[in-house]
């Protein structure tokens, strides 16, 4: 296979801390060299002057792998939630899910933690891991029973698997579509208190501590919940937290006029919580940023607010929205990229997310400052975004997966 030399870019490898103008040489689907190197004869040269080169993004938590949307967003690997039809609670389903994105996007499935994701009986997470699952997940909702959650976390230790939990108290949030507050009250929406999250987090952290399990809270969206994570990390527990862009960019006012595209799970929070999410990204309490890509048809979103399906398409906007954290000074560019590359790679022990010699040739080239306006109807993939019409900066110019150019813009 022909070698590819990418020249003229600012190369950032958040894994090693490398950040300099350099040439990147790819050969045989792997990274061959990074630095001030001579371009070998016969190599295809890509001039990337003015662009930033980074490892392809690893999207740590999507509900569907849409290869085209991923490529447009610079995403080369996704961690797939087990909420599929049928749920990924069987090793054969896990194996199938793992194969379905290749070669364009590699899918790393999470096995369902309980059978049918019902929260009652443990699923075969050990066989799931053997079939390719990179962790076990509770799915869209929390496991209501503390006993089941306790056993799950204890059992996961036998396989040293990360358990991905949705932290919202199941009974408190039953039927709720918004966060309790003056806003939800005014609109007459069924609401759950924000502390439904911290209540669940407190339980899950305590159970993880008791069992020694590795716990990842997929979305932590409240000041109270984040404080619990901060304390747990300070105690040295193997606990991590993630978030998606909506929770540091939007607050409960986004549901005004019953905008069902802003119906998300967990529901959007108060502005105080929104600011706490931003601060927690800044201080490292939240270490993973994902898109939460959850395609919904217009028919499933254009319904009365409470009847609309939750979730947003996020793959194509992940990078641009994450770069807002760089512009407002929350994170350096390298640190922002790390939340979407090296951090999820380490959490789920994935190849990729690095430019180290011998790493898979998963590369993204982007123009950090290119302005554009988010328009759902111009998306390559699903269009259900709550950010429709919002101006952003940062555009993916090229995505390379395993040495193949899969996206160019």
């Amino acid at each position, binding site marked *: 296979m022909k070698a590819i030399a990418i020249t003229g870019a600012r190369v950032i490898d958040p894994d090693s801390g490398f950040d300099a103008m350099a040439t990147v040489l790819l050969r045989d689907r792997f990274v061959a060299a990074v630095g001030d190197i001579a371009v070998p004869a016969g190599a295809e040269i890509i001039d990337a002057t003015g662009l930033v080169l980074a490892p392809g993004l690893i999207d740590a938590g999507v509900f569907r792998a849409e290869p085209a949307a991923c490529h447009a967003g610079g995403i080369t690997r996704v961690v797939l939630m087990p909420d599929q039809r049928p749920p990924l609670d069987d090793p054969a389903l896990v194996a199938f899910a793992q194969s379905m994105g290749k070669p364009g996007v590699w899918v790393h499935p999470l096995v369902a933690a309980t059978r049918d994701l019902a929260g009652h009986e443990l699923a075969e997470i050990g066989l799931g891991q053997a079939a390719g699952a990179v962790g076990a997940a509770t799915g869209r909702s929390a496991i209501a029973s503390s006993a089941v959650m306790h056993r799950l976390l204890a059992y996961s230790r036998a396989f040293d698997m990360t358990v991905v939990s949705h932290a919202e108290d199941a009974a408190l949030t039953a039927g709720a579509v918004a966060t309790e507050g003056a806003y939800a009250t005014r609109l*007459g929406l069924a609401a759950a208190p924000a502390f439904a999250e911290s209540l669940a987090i407190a339980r899950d952290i305590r159970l993880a501590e008791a069992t020694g399990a590795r716990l990842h809270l997929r979305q932590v969206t409240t000041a109270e919940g984040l404080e619990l994570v901060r304390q747990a990390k300070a105690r040295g527990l193997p606990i991590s937290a993630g978030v998606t862009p909506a929770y540091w960019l939007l607050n409960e006012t986004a549901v005004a006029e019953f905008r069902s595209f802003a119906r998300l799970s967990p529901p959007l929070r108060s502005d105080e919580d929104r600011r706490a999410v931003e601060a927690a990204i800044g201080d490292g309490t939240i270490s993973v940023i994902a898109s939460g890509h959850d395609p919904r048809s217009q028919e499933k979103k254009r319904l*009365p607010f409470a009847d609309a399906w939750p979730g947003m398409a996020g793959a194509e906007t992940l990078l641009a929205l994450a770069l807002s954290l760089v512009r407002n000074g929350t994170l350096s560019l390298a640190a922002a990229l790390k939340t979407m590359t090296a951090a999820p790679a380490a959490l789920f022990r994935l190849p990729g997310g690095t430019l180290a010699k011998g790493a898979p040739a998963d590369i993204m080239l982007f123009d950090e400052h290119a302005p554009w306006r988010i328009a759902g109807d111009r998306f390559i993939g699903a269009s259900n975004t709550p950010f429709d019409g919002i101006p952003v900066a940062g555009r993916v110019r090229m995505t390379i997966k395993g040495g193949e150019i899969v996206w160019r813009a």
Partner: protein
Amino acid sequence: MTNSPNLVTPAGAHPFPHSHLLGLAGLQPWEMLYLLDEAEQWVELNRGAGRQSGNGAGKHDNRLAGLTQINAFFENSTRTLLSFEIAGKRLGADVVNLGVSGSSVKKGETLLDTALTLSAMHPDVIVIRHGSSGAVQLIAEKMGCPVLNAGDGRHEHPTQALLDALTIRRRKGRIEGLTVAICGDILHSRVARSNFQLLAALGAKVRVVAPPTLLPPHVDQLGVDAYTSMDEGLKGVDVVMMLRLQTERMDGAYVPSTREYFRFFGLTEERLRHAAPGVLVMHPGPMNRGVEIDGSIADDIVRSAVTEQVEMGVAVRMACLDVLTRSRRGVAGWPPIGAAA
């Protein structure tokens, strides 16, 4: 927020520059008053005194003749549907009712498809009730005609609040400066939410009285004072508005039992003594006697305005139907829809 509301239409302002009536949030105080003023004439007509129309005698006016009014009720209703039907017929409209059982909703048609279907039949005004908050607004965006919200989920029920206001104004002579206590299941009530908007806008002081489990969170931020004791909440009030408590919410889900509820939150003769002399008692109906209200109070024609509320309902709905269809009837001074804000 209850100080000196802006009750007078500013010079040059249109009295009602809206294509739909989706809620009272967003209406100016003088626009609410305009609808109340317009309703007064229909009270007279409905009582049989007015033979103002050239075409009919008694309780009839033909200004909506030739217009089609669809009452699309996606949630069961007897009183409101009947009230809107009578209102439309008294104005001469061709009124068609669509109930849940007769609709395609049960066959899996999406709400927007239903809206497009209704719109294609070229109604001139459509009245919608739906069990989901925000559903009426969603439909209104797809309709080419005025839409009247007859209740959406827990969100708003604007004509109910307007008829309550008309009842209060006729009985008390004013709304500004009165203290009104709304008692009962505030959490699930669209009537309460519309009344917060209207009463506060028109300068009344609003209290809510309910067990804490039936109070919406952060309700104080909506400009009302919350009480969990009836005796405290009723102290010195000019109007008591009781809300219906749904039976399915009394079996331990929100309150332990009907008898405990009545004991602490029911409106009794004794409790009513805490209110101001001449207190007016209201209820949107249907009443649960012995659950939220003592039968003898409900039947007291001096203090209870319950039947009057029903009467005002027809008049208010006639006013709303008239005002909202003016632009398509080409009434002078009412610009075509689209030109209005």
